[in-house]
């Protein structure tokens, strides 16, 4: 882990994104329809990708970027799978 202003800025940014994600959990709980929850979950997922990338830069661990790439792909796949599933009611899964 490096010390310095850049690292502090990146950690603070990661903290802000985590706070926004925690606030968005309220929308996932409230709904009211299933698609509302999925859209909020998609936004939380992309915020988590950004948090992982910010932590990778702040702690100088480039290997975290691979985790972020896989997380972004899985996040996209989850949204597409759930929207297919709600239309065809199990036709694709």
């Amino acid at each position, binding site marked *: 882990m490096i010390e310095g202003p850049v690292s502090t*800025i990146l950690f603070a*940014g990661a903290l802000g*994104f985590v706070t926004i994600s925690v606030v968005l959990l309220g929308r996932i709980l409230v709904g009211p329809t299933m*698609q*509302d929850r999925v859209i909020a979950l998609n*936004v939380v997922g992309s915020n988590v990708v950004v948090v992982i990338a910010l932590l990778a830069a702040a702690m100088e661990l480039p290997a975290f970027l691979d985790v972020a790439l896989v997380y972004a792909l899985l996040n996209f796949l989850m*949204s597409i799978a759930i929207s*297919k599933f709600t239309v065809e009611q199990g036709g694709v899964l």
Partner: protein
Amino acid sequence: MVIQGLIAVLVVGGLFFAFVSAVGLYRLPDLYTRAHAASKSDTLGSILSLSAVALAFGADVATIKVAMLVALMLITSPTAAHAIARAAHEQGIEPWTRGDDR
């Protein structure tokens, strides 16, 4: 020093657009308007923050991965929001119009 200021500006800009997206998801009246807030401002916030990460890594192999991540977010985030909104439309959820209560 210039790089440092640029990183700070990009992180703050990304946080601002993520905050706008969260406010939109809470305050807008129905699914379709919320999809609008989620897809556009959240994508812009992610791309600004990832640009800050790319600047922090500098000239490195990791920067190429960050560029791939930016391209991936730019393509997949609006596509996912579009797919969900279309699924809602095919399920018969009516859009909000002026005069409906929320």
